[in-house]
Structures are given as structure tokens and as C-alpha cells.
């Protein structure tokens, strides 16, 4: 049984496969988080609005995307869109032809929904006194948001958001089901080529672990810096 393990890990192609996969995974997750996070800020502010017309549509969005499996969302966006009559003739097809963009869209919408709710919670947890003090200084709603509410809300959101980043990394493994050559795809290739499930998937799992440790280390530093005042002495 170790013959194939030696075969696999003495072949430089194996490492190339995993490296390429890891690059695709990191790219995918980074872009999703960047765009999803940017979307989540205005959405979270809208979500905390008392005006039902502003609040309600965002609630529907987060409810749908948090309430359905990411795999289903991905299938709908990837396979569903291709079946829309005549889409191949429109400029949209340039985006949807490759697997990358449909997958990115699914990931962005999904992470935006979760992040919106994380930020909303943090915004709503702003101490009353801080807002009242800001009002007493005569700050407008915009200034209050910018100077008082958002900066402290983002700090409070960091621990919960680091979870979302790690979950996103792990959820990105489903990209391999729509032909994207990500890290899990490398594992599947080794599995199928050498019939070696342990070698293929354990190595992929180790790379995911390393990436997760990296993310956690970064967030630990950020927390130390931004949340120092909240840490027990």
C-alpha cells in the first residue's frame, strides 16, 4: 500500500497540482471575502434601519442565502443560468461561460449574507450612551455612523468575522464540483489517478489546515491590536 504513496509523493507533478489548487482556492476565497465584505457594510446599515422598506429587502436576502445550502446556490447560478434562453448571445455569457465567475458570484452573495448579519449584530450592540453622547454633541446620523458606531462595531465584529473567513475557506471546497481546479480538485485527481483516497485527501486536508492556521494567526494579531482594551488582564 505504501508503493503508491511513494509514487505519489516522489512525483513533482503532485506538488504542482496541489500548489495550483491552493492558489485557486486562496484567490477565490480572498476575492469573495473582499467583495462580500464590501457589500455587507451598506447592507448591514440598511438592515438596522427602522424603515421597513429598507430593512425588509435586506432581511429577505440574508434569509434566503443563509437558509439554503451553498451547494444549491452554486448549482443554480452555474447550471441554471446556462439554461436561460439566449443568454449565450448576450455579453453576460462572457462572464458565465467559465466556471470561475458563477462560482465567485455564489460565494460573494453567500458570504455577504452572513457578514451582513454579523455586522448588524455588532452595530445593534453599540452602547446607548455612546450614541446619546454623539447626539448631544450635535452629530448628524452620517457623522454618528462614521465616527462612533461603525468603528466600534467593526471591532466588536472581528471574532465572529474570523469564523466566517474560516468557514468560507472550507466552503470553497465545493468549487471543485463545478470543474474548478481548486485544492480539493487536486485531492480528487490524486484519488482517481492512483486510487489512493487517504493520500489524496489527507494531503489536501493538511494544506487546508495550514491555510486555516494562517488565517487564525492573522486574526489573533488583529484582535490583539484592535480589541486590546477588551482583553482580560
Amino acid at each position, binding site marked *: 500500500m505504501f508503493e503508491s504513496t511513494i509514487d505519489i509523493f516522489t512525483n513533482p507533478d503532485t506538488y504542482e497540482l496541489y500548489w495550483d489548487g491552493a492558489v485557486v482556492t486562496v484567490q477565490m476565497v480572498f476575492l469573495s471575502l473582499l467583495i462580500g465584505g464590501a457589500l455587507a457594510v451598506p447592507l448591514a446599515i440598511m438592515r438596522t434601519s427602522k424603515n421597513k422598506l429598507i430593512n425588509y429587502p435586506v432581511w429577505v436576502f440574508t434569509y434566503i442565502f443563509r437558509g439554503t445550502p451553498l451547494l444549491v446556490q452554486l448549482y443554480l447560478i452555474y*447550471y441554471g443560468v*446556462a*439554461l436561460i434562453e439566449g443568454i*449565450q448571445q448576450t455579453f453576460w*455569457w462572457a462572464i458565465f*461561460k*467559465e*466556471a470561475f465567475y458563477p462560482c465567485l458570484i455564489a460565494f460573494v452573495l453567500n458570504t455577504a449574507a452572513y457578514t451582513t448579519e454579523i455586522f448588524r449584530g455588532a452595530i445593534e450592540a453599540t452602547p446607548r450612551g455612546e450614541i446619546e453622547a454623539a447626539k448631544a454633541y450635535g452629530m448628524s446620523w452620517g457623522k454618528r455612523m462614521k465616527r462612533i458606531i461603525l468603528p466600534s462595531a467593526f471591532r466588536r465584529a472581528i471574532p465572529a468575522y474570523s469564523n466566517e473567513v474560516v468557514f468560507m475557506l472550507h466552503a470553497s471546497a465545493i468549487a471543485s*464540483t463545478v*470543474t474548478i*481546479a481548486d485544492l480539493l*480538485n487536486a485531492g*480528487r*485527481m490524486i*484519488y*482517481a*489517478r492512483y*486510487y489512493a*483516497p487517504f493520500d489524496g485527501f489527507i494531503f489536501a486536508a493538511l494544506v487546508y489546515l495550514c491555510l486555516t492556521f494562517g488565517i487564525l494567526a492573522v486574526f489573533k494579531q488583529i484582535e490583539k491590536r484592535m480589541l486590546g482594551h477588551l482583553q482580560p488582564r
Partner: protein
Amino acid sequence: MKKTLVAIAGALALTSAVEAKDWDTIRAGVDAPYPPFEYKAPDGTLTGFEIELGNEVCKEITGKECEWVIQAWDGIIPGLLARKYDMIFSSMSINEERQKRVLFSDPYYTTPSAFFSANAFDPADADGKRIGVQRATIQDTYVTEFLDDAEIVRYTTADDMVVDLQGGRLDAMFVDAPVGLEMLGEDSDIVQVGDFVKEPVRIFGEGVGAAFRKRDKDLEEAVSAALEKVKASGKYDEIMNRYFDFDIKL
């Protein structure tokens, strides 16, 4: 302690004795849908060329039909080794790489592979074209080796690949010719392009055989013998003619 050991040894001896006796049911692993070889009929029952042929073979050995276990292609050999079933009867081409892990029966059919495309795709000029294959099939090996300037898109199942070919995401797909013909149907605007591809034998192998765990030599011999009988009795041709317009017998 000693007693327990004896009991365990006894139990082990008993189970291996049970296994070594005649096969009273044969569990066969199959990757479905892969029409016309194996697919679900509208009423949900499993049918197709290999299902019918496999059932005839099982009847020769055990007197009853095989017990079919559906397993996705990329896990089909690990599934056999993990004893989820006793043989693979799923269009598995015999080749050297696989012979390292499994034992093959005599080949029971052979089919060429072919490219399918909606536009004038030329396999000789595949640079930058998107070509779909099922991951880790011999077709995958072929395009990886010979069409390395093409963008190769690897699918887990053949039907996902057909959806993408019809949706225009692929310029062509490279599959077993009968599978392509069957999946696309006659009135499709996607047609076979170029000739059948059967060479090199190093990749395409010497035909399709049933695969077994290496220790199950007795079952392999029984299945090879049963296949011989089914071919000689005319049942093979009867089943083949129901599914194919051309001869795939070996």
C-alpha cells in the same frame, strides 16, 4: 483472555470460510447514469446494456440477478477494495495502471472514443479550446497527453458535462462514442466530429472487463466462464442488438 482469542480466531475462521464458499449473491458496482450501458428507466429501475448482460452473467453463476450498487466513477475502485461490492461491471477499460490494483475478467466489449461538438471543432487544432472529459477516465489520460494546448475541463459525472456542452460552455467533449451518441440523441445539433479514436492501446486498453479484488480469483474465473457461455448462447447478441446499431462484441 486465551478463550477470547480462541473465540475471535474461531469467528474469523468462520467468516473466511463463509466467504470462500460459492457466491450466492454477487454485488456489482456500477457508475450510473452512463447510458446506454447503465441508466435508470422512467419507472426508476436500473437498466442498460451492462445491467442486462451483468444479470445474465450473475444468473449463470448464482441463479439470480446481480445486486447492483451505484457508485460514482472516481470512487469505484476504492469502493471495490472497501468491499462495498464484489465486482465492478461498469465499462471499465482494462489497462496497466488499473491492473496494479484490480483483477480483470476477459474483456466483454470494446468501444471507441469520439469527440462531440456543436461547431466545427477539429481535434487536430484544439489549441485554447475547452474540452470536457470525465475525471480520471482513459479519455482524460488521452487529452492530457495529446491535447495539452487545449483547456481541459474535468467533470465528476458525464451528464454534468453534457449540460455544459449543450449550454455552450465547452467547445467539445471527449467520451465513449456510444455514450455520446446516446446522451445527445438524434435531433441534437451536437454531433460527432472526427473519426473514432482507439489508439494508442497503451491508453485505450484491450477492451472493457469486469474488475475484482485480487484475492477473488475464483469469482473472476466464474465470471469469465459465464461471459463465455452468454456469448455462445446468443443472449449476448440479443442484448447488444437492443442497444447498439454496431458491433461491440469481443
